[in-house]
């Protein structure tokens, strides 16, 4: 099945079909006949650390997988991409898509015994948009504030029902509520817990916290978990899971091979060699995510040289994407043909500048003619990471060929992240955009995620920067922005997709950013791990088998002792 995701360029019309086939083929692996067994613990090796569990602490990829054993989301995504209620019972919306009524499922409770109700939902959403006013130090919404800026207010209309009012109509509001799996059902007791918000996650998930450190998360079975399997057995099956941050790829590979780990996760960004090796291993099952992760080269419009279009065009033309994928990723992923991948609704090849050295040189000459300067920029990469250096060096090679001077900027990851969102770099590569929908695309290409709401709650606070902070290219493109808002207001799916694609075309023709290749994730598990991807969602339908945040552990069980 994995070959389905590997293909190169695909026709737009084929995308949905591919997604569908993919989702069908992902269901029910061969172990379905075995009866799940309760008990046992798993050791899981991951490649991200745990920066914390409060709103502003963004759990990345594999750490998100771990965090999602404690936390669930109000809504979930089906394998076909549709967002469906999960901890919510039902969702209703007004005809203009500006009012959304969310009803919480009855009988769900947090790990500390407090009930999940309308108040909890209000607290959760308010904390995510930075609207909580608290005594002492208020928990910052962090970058989540930008995602939720279209929300005007949240009111409880019944014990378990909450109404969310939006500033701009948003057909895909549930995608925002899902936030690619990141908008957790956090307990108010955690959110309002003051000093412990970052270190004591309290959720509704199948597992609850035992202990956590920067490098480790230990969770144990939540005996009061609300879901049970088809046979009426209480979920989850496992007694506990230990997630360990193993930054060295070799540690994860050897951990699996030496049976110190049951499961380990990998990324195609730099670990292709190891993934291919694991795929050959008979004792392991290796599953891959779809290529739904779109790392971009962001070009800062606020400062020279990328305030000049010719500069951006030159860079976009200069990158030999096919060569990059061959050299750096061993053809494991597809070279980019748009700023997003074929699975995304915004995918559009029009206006996307493919490798063309001649045109790149022309653009460099045009830049020189306009500004009188040679095209030169700095590019940060993670110091100490061979992969990061090799990627940057590879890009530098293409730039040099086109007559562009690219200076490498070695910085620590912390420095890069800290400087990225205040948009201080001239250019940088960062994976932000992902998924099939637009909830995790739009905020990064919009200059004001509040949709121009002048009365927004954050407008007069320092946190107002959050509206545009996610747009690392720091541009304001009214045409594409309006198209995106217009698409979000369009009820008809096909018509909506068309508008989105037009927005993409505008972004690409202005060379706001560019993409080199797409990315995917891999997860390998040993043969004693069963039930991966077998448990469906609560109202039928399956999850995606594998994503950037790995697998779901609710239905996973373990053979043997």
């Amino acid at each position, binding site marked *: 099945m994995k070959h389905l995701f590997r293909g190169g360029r695909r026709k737009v019309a084929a995308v949905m079909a591919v997604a569908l086939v993919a989702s069908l083929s992902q269901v029910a692996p061969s172990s379905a006949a075995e009866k799940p067994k309760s008990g046992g613990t798993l050791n899981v090796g991951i490649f991200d650390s745990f920066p914390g569990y409060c709103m502003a602490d963004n759990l990345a990829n594999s750490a998100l997988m771990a965090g999602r054993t404690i936390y669930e989301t109000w809504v979930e995504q089906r394998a076909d991409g549709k967002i469906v209620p999960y901890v919510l019972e039902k969702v209703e919306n007004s005809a203009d898509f500006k009012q959304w009524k969310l009803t919480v499922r009855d009988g769900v409770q947090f790990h500390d015994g407090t009930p999940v109700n309308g108040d909890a939902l209000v607290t959760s959403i308010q904390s995510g948009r930075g609207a909580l006013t608290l005594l002492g130090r208020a928990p*910052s919404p962090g970058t989540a504030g930008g995602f939720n800026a279209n929300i005007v207010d949240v009111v409880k209309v019944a014990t378990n029902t909450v109404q969310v009012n939006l500033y701009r109509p948003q057909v895909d509001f549930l995608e925002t509520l899902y936030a690619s799996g990141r908008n957790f059902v956090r307990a108010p007791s955690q959110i309002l817990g003051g000093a412990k918000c970052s270190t004591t996650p309290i959720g509704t998930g199948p597992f609850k916290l035992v202990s956590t450190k920067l490098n480790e998360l230990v969770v144990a079975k939540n005996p009061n978990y609300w879901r049970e399997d088809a046979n009426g057995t209480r979920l989850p099956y496992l007694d506990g899971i230990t997630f360990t941050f193993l930054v060295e790829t070799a540690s994860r590979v050897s*951990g699996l091979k030496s049976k110190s780990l049951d499961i380990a996760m990998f990324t195609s960004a730099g670990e292709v060699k190891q993934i291919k090796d694991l795929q050959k291993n008979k004792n392991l099952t290796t599953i891959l995510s779809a290529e739904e992760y779109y790392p971009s080269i962001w070009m800062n419009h606020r400062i020279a040289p990328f305030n000049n279009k010719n500069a951006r065009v030159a860079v976009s033309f200069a990158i030999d994407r096919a060569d990059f994928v061959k050299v750096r990723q061993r053809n494991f992923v597809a070279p980019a043909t748009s700023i997003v991948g074929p699975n995304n609704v915004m995918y559009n090849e029009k206006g996307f500048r493919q490798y063309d050295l001649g045109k790149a040189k022309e653009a460099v000459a045009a830049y020189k003619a306009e500004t009188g300067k040679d095209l030169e920029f700095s590019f940060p990469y993670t110091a100490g990471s061979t992969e990061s250096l090799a990627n940057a060096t590879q890009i530098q090679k293409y730039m040099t060929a086109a007559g562009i001077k690219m200076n490498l900027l070695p910085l620590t990851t912390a420095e890069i992240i800290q400087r990225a969102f205040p948009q201080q770099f001239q250019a940088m590569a960062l994976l932000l955009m992902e998924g099939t929908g637009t909830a995790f695309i739009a905020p990064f290409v919009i200059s004001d995620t509040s949709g121009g709401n002048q009365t927004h709650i954050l407008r007069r606070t320092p946190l107002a920067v959050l509206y545009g902070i996610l747009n690392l290219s720091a541009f304001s493109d009214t045409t594409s922005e309006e198209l995106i808002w217009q698409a979000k207001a369009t009820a008809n799916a096909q018509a909506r997709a068309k508008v989105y694609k037009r927005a993409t075309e505008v972004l690409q023709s202005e060379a706001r950013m560019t993409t080199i290749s797409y990315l995917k994730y891999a997860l390998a598990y040993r043969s004693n791990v069963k039930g991966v991807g077998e448990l469906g969602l609560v109202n039928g339908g399956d999850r995606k088998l594998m994503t950037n945040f790995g697998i779901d552990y609710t239905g996973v069980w373990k053979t043997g002792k």
Partner: protein
Amino acid sequence: MRGSFWVKRLAQLLITVFGVTFGCSLLVQLLPVSPAEILLPVGSPEERDLLTKEIGLDRGPIGYYAKWLGEFVTGDFGDIYYSGGTEEVSGRLATALPRSLLLMIYTQIVALSIAIPLGVWSAYRVGRRADKVISNTLFTMSSIPNFAIALVLVLIVGVRLQWLPTLDYQPFSAGPWEHAKHMIMPVLSLSVGLVASYTRLLRADMIATLREDYITMAASKGLSDRRVLWRHAFRPSSVTLFTSAALNMGGLIGGAIVVETIFATYGVGFEVFAAISGRQYIALQSMVAIICIFYVLFNLTIDVIAGYVDPRTRDRRINA
């Protein structure tokens, strides 16, 4: 006389601790950006002011240090700052420190118990083939970084032979064997480099000792070579070795970052690294202070041991 030596030595060590911690606190002051800005990247100016006051950064270098020190001696090692709240450094150290201490102690025991016989033997066979083989093997080993040794061990012992788990730490309470299984490989990878340097130190001192008349004297009494080596030559040759071992303590507690990462034996080294890369300078200051205190304690212990091993040093100290 002896008493005054120890008072002097203790004072010296206390000054060391003060020096290190004050240096760290100066480092915090010297940062190009305000620590409050680093610790609260999305905070409001009011919040940052509050934090600056809370940490004591508004009091100037001396005031800040005095505040930190006052809290440190009462067991408040400061906090690690998250976007949503804080975590006490002491909690982190409570899990990390025992791991690092055990790792360090085991490593020293293993390194010394390999290096001592090797050093004595190669000094005894100086210039012969055994000595040359030992020396060159050790030099080769010492030029392999410990992380490379760790990875080779993992590949051979963990993956190919499947004898030992490659990851994780188990406390002694989980059973001695369980504990040992998880410690063997990290300890071995850290030991190799030390074995090389210890053997070399001991060998050099032993060679010098074996030239002494009292060794010939001992031989002329009709004692066996083994007895001459161990009873007569080893002790007077071992002071440099133990002093050097004491100097390595700090490095092993806080500097085993890479090996700790490979084996997921996350100890103080990892915490220090995380504090540096996460810019948790307040936490860093306390952690370095703790490492320094242990370093000082171990050095004091070694002083006592050295006085026992070589009574001349007692005499020398009194004269010094």
